[in-house]
């Protein structure tokens, strides 16, 4: 159990049965008045923002959250299958819950999966992943059309803009926070 006095940026609390993370926090106390805890919070499942002011006697449950290290195995239709690297338990996560992360997931990749009340709600990817370019238009040497990027497809099916010199069969590094090309990787 938390009280309003525990609120601070980054704290995870349960509000109306859902897990929230405090993204912005300000303590206020008008003269002779009571302490007010003004929060902006993000619903960790839906991403919706909640702006709320609490008083010191307000209480919060700790959300039942657990982070587990899991290995991505394979995808079947919209189900992405994972294995817990500790106890080898397997489970499937719906594509919807993975969002843009599916763009960067390749077989056997390890990632942190966040569970709320034993249901997976989020995965955290490494900040950078290296993926194989499976489709790219060849670079026409002497092309003076002025274009400094071209679209390529990587092994996950994700399409992104890269510099013209990237070719099919190259490995490229992608920033998973923005989905943008970082560099070509030599292996």
């Amino acid at each position, binding site marked *: 159990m938390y009280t309003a006095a525990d609120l601070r940026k980054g704290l995870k609390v349960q509000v109306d049965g859902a897990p929230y993370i405090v993204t912005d926090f300000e*303590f*206020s106390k*008008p*003269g*002779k*008045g*009571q302490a007010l805890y*003004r929060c902006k919070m993000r619903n960790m499942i839906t991403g919706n923002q909640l702006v709320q002011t609490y008083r010191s006697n307000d209480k919060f449950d700790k959300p039942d959250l657990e982070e587990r290290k899991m290995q991505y195995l394979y995808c079947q239709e919209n189900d992405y299958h994972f294995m817990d690297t500790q106890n080898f338990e397997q489970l499937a996560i719906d594509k919807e819950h993975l969002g843009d992360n599916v763009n960067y997931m390749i077989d056997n990749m390890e990632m942190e999966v966040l569970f709320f009340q034993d249901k997976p709600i989020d995965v955290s990817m490494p900040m950078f992943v290296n993926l194989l370019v499976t489709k790219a238009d060849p670079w026409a040497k002497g092309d003076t059309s002025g274009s400094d990027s071209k679209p390529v497809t990587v092994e996950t099916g994700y399409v992104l803009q890269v510099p013209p010199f990237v070719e099919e069969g190259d490995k490229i590094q992608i920033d998973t926070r923005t989905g943008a090309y970082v560099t070509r990787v030599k292996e």
Partner: protein
Amino acid sequence: MLDLQGLRFRAAFFHSLRSFFVRQQFLEVDTPIRQPLLLPELNIEPLASEGWFLQASPELCMKRLLAAGCSRIFQLCNCFRKGERGRLHLEEFTMLEWYRTNGGYEDLMADCEALLGSLLADLGGMAPCTFSNENLRVGDRVISLHPPWERLSVHEAFARYSPVSLEQALAADTFDEILVEYVEPFLGMDRPLFLYDYPVELGSLAKRKDGSPQLAERFELYINGIELANGFSELTDSHEQRRRFEQELSMMDEERRQQSRMPERFLEELAGLDRAAGIALGVDRLLMLLIGKESVGEVVSFAPVDFD
């Protein structure tokens, strides 16, 4: 943590505060920081110290000094309020309080205007101040500190800025929330503002207004949306003060009630006090505005974070 330049400015600022009051024939006093009991105030949680308490304000002792015959006194001291932490709050902070007999809250407002004028004159041009002449720079705005400052009643302020009236806010027990959310951000943005005449239930030590007994002669000074000082005409009717304290005590939870008791000796001595007024000013917040900092933790020599 303050750098050397900041420490020098803070010292000059303290010196200027003191010299203003000395020139005005106020007597500087220093009362004990640790006391066996504090005035019962519902919304101020004390920090305990070996069965006694660290003062939340020097108010109790200073009013006893008034009752003992002092006519103008001031004190610059450290105060403590448990659980207060934030951009504008430190659990240990610096307070300036001054009290005068034969005066009311209007006199304190005039004191504030004169005090700021004196500070600007003493500190103008000294780095890292953010003012020139009577103009305070805050970001890309300028706040004119030239008196007279704006005066706005709490009732008018709610009518002007709040989605609900003062009466509705009081009835719904949302006065504090509405004040913080809708009213304060607009106060003292072009020039300092006195928000005055609070509902009497929001000023447990303040005198009722002559002719309007539902109001207390209490005001707050705002500059740039920040509350800097709380002043009022002192309630000197010890019977009414006892009833107001009983009211505060009755609203406390069990734990707080055990820490609190009726300040009998204070009430006894209060009976000997005539017309008086007193004010508490958050010195760290004022300094923060004068040197353009964002939080009070940046203008004290050591904030809690400096011990991490």
